[in-house]
């Protein structure tokens, strides 16, 4: 039954036909436009770059894209891929819009409409899980800095992860406490945002805390979109912890710390990465950011070759320090370039074989904590470990483990009223 047809029956009018035709024409044209392949020069290697450039995680995604672009510039400037007669890297950048369904669409699209030799992304583990699945099906090697355990637990042949695994972060957070604690601190509170990142890290925190005999006085997931941290921090305060292990993104990290100061909750804070590691954290909190620890999969001052050099260049070009995942994005581009060099071919299968055999100890491609990139049978970089950083005088510095530490940590943390 065509309700509105009946109500508005006007007979066939030329205008309506034209409008209908226009709409269908646009739809058809939209679909057919894919057939027009962008001209890809012969001396180019296509690398897919998938990050959230809009939506909730845009802040992180945009930094990762910038770092990838910078790396490609550097690689091309020093002669491109020499075994391919100086072929330059051509980044096919796409925005997964902080949405898992869109991630699938855009990954499918770039992998079927371009000849990719490799791809990288997606910052957030939720999206990486989707993109790597598509990549596996099309046989495109995918290198990621995401951390959730399922990424390398699926037996995929085309997935490579340079970063530590999620639970290692939680372990490191607790291990740091064990290393620092001198006054018998026993009570820990774990609060985490409820996406894949938060929940995986929290699992590591919970397991290790139990192992080390700490008392978990609070374990609470929360939704990042809150506009007031008071309900959450209220609960933290009531639990009277010695140390808080928060795992947060940006606004929640800042609000939690601010509110902890307001409610005078004097626990040491050992954060889980992400929001605790970005420039806004310090910009938003000022001096209150000092003394906050955070685990990180990467920092710009780790003890690996060339890190300082490219970090400084990034800071010069983009006006802010090179943050955790963006640094990894930079490193990953060099790992890809290295694999292309060994493979001597743009064929994704050969690139994959080269990645399996990767064993980098020099150059920007090895600049992950541990200073060595080599993938195990499941595609994970078995030499990597997270590092612990602390904000000191407005600077984010690595303080643990000793092999990477540039500064000693400040411990114990002075109470809010005494700063």
């Amino acid at each position, binding site marked *: 039954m065509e309700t509105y047809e009946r109500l508005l029956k006007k007979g066939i009018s030329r205008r309506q036909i034209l409008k209908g035709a226009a709409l269908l024409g646009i739809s058809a044209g939209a679909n057919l436009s894919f057939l027009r392949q962008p001209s890809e020069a012969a001396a180019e290697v296509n690398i897919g770059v998938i990050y959230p*450039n809009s939506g909730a995680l*845009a802040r992180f995604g945009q930094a990762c894209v910038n770092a990838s672009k910078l790396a490609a510039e550097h690689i091309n400037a020093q002669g491109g891929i020499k075994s391919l007669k100086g072929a330059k890297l051509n980044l096919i950048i796409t925005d997964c819009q902080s949405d898992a369904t869109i991630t699938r669409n855009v990954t499918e699209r770039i992998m079927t409409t371009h000849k990719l030799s490799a791809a990288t992304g997606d910052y957030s583990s939720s999206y990486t899980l989707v993109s790597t699945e598509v990549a596996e099906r099309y046989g495109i090697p995918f290198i990621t800095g995401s951390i959730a355990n399922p990424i390398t637990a699926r037996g995929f042949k085309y997935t490579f992860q340079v970063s530590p695994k999620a639970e290692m972060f939680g372990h490191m957070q607790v291990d740091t406490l064990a290393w620092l604690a001198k006054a018998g601190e026993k009570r820990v509170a774990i609060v985490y945002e409820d996406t894949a990142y938060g929940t995986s890290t929290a699992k590591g925190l919970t397991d290790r805390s139990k192992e080390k005999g700490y008392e978990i006085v609070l374990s609470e997931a929360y939704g990042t979109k809150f506009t007031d941290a008071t309900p959450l921090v209220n609960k933290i305060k009531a639990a009277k912890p010695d140390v808080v292990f928060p795992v947060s993104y940006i606004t929640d990290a800042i609000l939690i710390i601010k509110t902890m100061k307001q409610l005078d909750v004097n626990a040491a804070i050992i954060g889980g990465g992400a929001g605790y590691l970005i420039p806004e954290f310090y910009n938003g909190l000022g001096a209150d950011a000092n003394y906050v620890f955070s685990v990180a999969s990467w920092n710009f001052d780790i003890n690996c070759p060339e890190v300082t050099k490219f970090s400084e260049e990034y800071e010069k070009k983009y006006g802010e320090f090179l943050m955790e995942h963006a640094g990894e994005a930079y490193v990953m581009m060099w790992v890809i370039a290295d694999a292309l060099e060994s493979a001597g071919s743009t064929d994704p299968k050969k690139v994959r074989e080269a990645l399996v055999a990767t064993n980098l100890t020099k150059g920007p491609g090895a600049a992950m904590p541990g200073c060595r990139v080599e993938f195990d049978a499941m595609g994970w970089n078995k030499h990597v470990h997270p590092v612990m950083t602390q904000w000191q005088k407005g600077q984010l510095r690595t303080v643990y483990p000793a092999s990477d530490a540039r500064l000693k940590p400040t411990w114990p943390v002075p109470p809010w009223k005494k700063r």
Partner: protein
Amino acid sequence: MAIALPAEPEKKQGGFNRLGNPEVYFPFLGLLILFILPFVLPIFFVHILIMIFLFAILGSAWNLIGGYASQLSLGHAAFFGIGAYTSTMLMRSYGLSPWIGMIFGAFLAVAMSILLGALCFRLRGPYFAIATIGLAEVLRLFTLHFRDWTSGAIGLTIPFKGNAPFLFQFTSKVPYYFISFFFLMLTIWVVRWVGSSRLGNYLLAIGQDQDAAEAVGIDSAKAKRMAFYMSSFITGMAGTFYAQYAYFIEPDSVFGLGLSIQIALVAILGGVGTVWGPVVGALIIESLIQFTQYAFAGTIYGLEQIVYGSLLVVIILLRPVGVIQWVQNLYGRWLRCLPGKYAPRS
């Protein structure tokens, strides 16, 4: 892109004369083309078509309650998510084939719609809409929270078993294409059947003016319930299809408000209360989304959504009741241009 309007036998034309009528032979031609397409088109087009079919199914199912009965549901993702999670969890825990899991999921979705109906059928207009948003959100939040059961935000992956038809898995996209196409035809048949039945009449009456309908003796609660059960059943099944096609589900993508809005949008843009409206709407919206992503996603952040949002606004301003009439007029004109004796049915 052809729109196949299945033709009914025209009693005024006898025998083989019928074949000369474009209104009869063109749909068959169209169907033939659609059958061949997945074998000749590049893979990404097949993917787009599958997405179009999926949203056409979802929009049509939504149409039963949102279009015909004018109960604006902005929480249909609830049923979709129930279908997706039920079949996936059953498969992961018990190895149950998703074909069977799909039926379980669909029935669970109906159960949820029973609950919704009991709580919400007295609600009108925006009240009902917000209540449905609430329902989908509660399901999403619970799925996130009870992570020991559902894996929470980490999501669930379908174990990859290669080509396994009995486990609803295929390595090529072609089977998915045909399954979704067949599913769509089935859904359209259901909608047409409802539309021309007494139930359909009742729903339309309720949609126009519920009080007046009840005054003439229509049991509005019963009619709405029937429509809702059918709507949620189909939507639940579509959820399972999505899970098996995408191999990965997580609370935001199957229970999210954005999905609910897109489902409703497809029907509204195309034309609510019509059989082919949601199909046309799905075609246009999916193409729009893919096009804006392709053309504008890249270095200029947010641009593709600006274009998408603008186009949506423009289309709604130009044609608030949906574009189906334009398209059908166009189709009629097209049929006239084809060789043969054109004799319209009405």
